[in-house]
């Protein structure tokens, strides 16, 4: 990659920065980064702004190449990037705009338990979760699917596994897209991908994936919190995982298959990692179908872990999960491309919205929201690090107007993995977390060291930036009490 001149960032207001399309030949639209003064300083330290400019070169891109306050350098697209393309105007779909972990996402489960119920038994609970929910490198799931059933799962997502007994039917209404994208084409998922994901549905994985027992520590918007069934002192469970090896392989296959496609369609790209195909082309449709099947796998994955979590709570507290009130609040994808309809320049257009490290954030009244959330808006789940907090936000109309209904997805790393391991030398991250009131279990010591709180930005800064920008507003802050990791 050639060294480019610094990316000009023109301040539009306290939380918006523009990259003019004059910055780089080939930019079809401006770049737009959402960040306050504190976060923009970090953002300028890596090449994420240049990637925002590169994405602005994609054919058919509409309005802006967008980036959320938690952006950092990614592959092709930055993490935290949003781009919508119009298929009717040659718009493309790019695997780099989704990422390897297709439909990596977050779900939040509430309970009727309080901190007082949990605190004396947190170790027992976390140990039981750790023993029941498979975590870590190479861990297969408790639930095995044969090849034929796996294809049904790829077509049906959460709906398929709920029908198989892994969860409650009410879960589907509070899962983005009902936990199933109907353009999924399991026949486009390679045997290699099926092999890689064969025993991984219902497993957490490693890296930054986690399952946390949390307490609602602060309610900022009581009306929205009440609509989501959240109140101060209440215990929640957050699960962060994705499509595991199956999704990684779908992306790997697509990046290989699409290598020569831009040249075939006369698409000039500033970075080969932005390989893409027109949405309406055969190549584009193949990726879209396989990617959406992988997205369904991810929803099924989180759904099965929800089922296992309910089993653990029922066992530890000796009451059925229904009696403990373990209801799903919401499940959102943050690595995905979907066809969604927006009004742009006075007309309704169906766009291919890429969200890579960005969360859908629909406002009140949106028809895709479940009836119970339609008066307030969609819960936006923003996980933080395992020592500080995570946030529940709610979508605002500005998100629909400006960012194709998108918002931030997390804290964003500030420390490399090696630096985090070096910083952990001579310390016990486990003990430090205990001192903060967090009991953590991980398969490998490196899991805690690499994912220590200092390795991340404070997610509260990110939540504050999108709140001030008006994309979403703060509803509740959750603090971890127990965590399991790979």
């Amino acid at each position, binding site marked *: *990659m050639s060294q480019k001149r610094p990316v000009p960032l023109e301040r539009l207001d306290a939380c918006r920065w523009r990259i003019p399309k004059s910055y780089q030949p080939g930019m079809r639209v401006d770049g737009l980064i959402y960040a306050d003064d504190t976060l923009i300083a970090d953002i300028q330290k*890596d090449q994420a702004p240049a990637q925002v400019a590169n994405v602005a070169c994609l054919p058919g891109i509409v309005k802006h190449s967008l980036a959320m306050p938690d952006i*950092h*350098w990614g*592959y*092709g697209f930055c*993490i935290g990037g949003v781009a919508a393309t119009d298929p009717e105007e040659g718009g493309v779909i790019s695997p780099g705009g989704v990422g*390897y*972990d297709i439909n990596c996402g977050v779900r939040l489960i509430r309970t009727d338990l309080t901190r007082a119920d949990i605190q004396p038994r947190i170790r027992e609970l976390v140990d039981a979760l750790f023993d029941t929910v498979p975590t870590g*490198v*190479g861990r297969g799931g408790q639930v095995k699917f044969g090849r034929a059933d796996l294809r049904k799962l790829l077509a049906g997502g959460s709906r398929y596994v709920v029908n198989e007994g892994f969860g409650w039917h009410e879960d589907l209404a509070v899962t983005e897209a009902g936990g199933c994208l109907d353009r999924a084409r399991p026949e486009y998922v390679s045997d*290699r991908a099926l*092999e*890689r994901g064969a025993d991984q549905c219902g497993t957490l*994985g*490693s*890296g*930054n994936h986690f399952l946390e027992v949390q307490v609602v520590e602060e309610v900022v918007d009581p009306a929205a919190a009440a609509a989501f069934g959240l109140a101060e002192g209440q215990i929640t469970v957050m699960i962060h995982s994705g499509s595991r*090896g199956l999704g*990684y*392989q779908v*992306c*790997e296959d697509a*990046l*290989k298959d699409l*290598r020569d496609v831009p040249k075939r369609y006369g698409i000039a790209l500033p970075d*080969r*990692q932005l390989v893409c195909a027109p949405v309406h082309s055969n190549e584009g449709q193949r990726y879209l179908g396989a990617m959406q099947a992988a997205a369904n796998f991810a929803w099924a994955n989180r759904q099965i872990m929800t089922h296992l979590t309910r089993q653990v709570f029922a066992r530890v507290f000796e009451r059925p999960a229904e009696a403990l009130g373990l209801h799903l609040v919401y499940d959102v994808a943050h690595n995905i491309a979907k066809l969604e309809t927006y009004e742009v320049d006075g007309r309704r257009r169906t766009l291919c919205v890429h969200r890579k490290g960005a969360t859908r954030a629909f406002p009140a009244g949106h028809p895709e929201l479940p009836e119970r959330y339609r008066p307030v808006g969609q819960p936006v789940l923003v996980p933080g690090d395992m020592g500080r907090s995570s946030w529940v936000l709610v979508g605002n109309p500005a998100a629909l107007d400006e960012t194709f209904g998108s918002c931030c997805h997390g804290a964003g*790393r500030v420390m*490399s*993995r*090696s*630096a985090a391991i070096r910083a952990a030398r001579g310390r016990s991250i486990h003990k430090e977390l205990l001192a903060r009131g967090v009991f953590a279990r991980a398969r*490998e010591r*490196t*899991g805690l060291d690499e994912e220590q709180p200092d390795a991340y930005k404070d997610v509260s800064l990110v939540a504050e930036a999108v709140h001030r920008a008006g994309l979403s507003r703060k509803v509740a802050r959750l603090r971890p009490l127990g965590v399991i990791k*790979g």
Partner: protein
Amino acid sequence: MGARMEPAYELFDHTADLGVRVTAATLPELVPPAVAGLYATLGHIVPQPAPAPADDFAFDATGDDPAVLLRDLLAELLHHFDTRRRVLMDIAVGEFSGVRLAVTGRLRPLDPEQSAPAREVKAVTYHALAVRPVAGGYEATFIVDI
């Protein structure tokens, strides 16, 4: 004349992931340390010694970019590791030119007693992917997504 460049690899930082930098005197000599570097990103990886059962491995691909050829080999090995816990040993490089990479070897099972896998690598990415001549030989870089 300086000392011949010995094949070697080193890991380097990347915000959320890990990079591998490989150096060697010739293109074919880049391959074994690149493979070792890939396994190093996964943790402490040790194959079972002979006479543990082993499968023959052969990779032969053509293209116009040696960096992409090397990446494709590493992606293939990642797949074998991820799905069957197999580790490539006895690497023989038949050809590594600008247009072809041909490698054979033996895939041995991971030794679970001696190994400590620490990370799940999603993919060998195209990000900062390069094979380039440097003084005394060649350098390859690749970044794995974790």
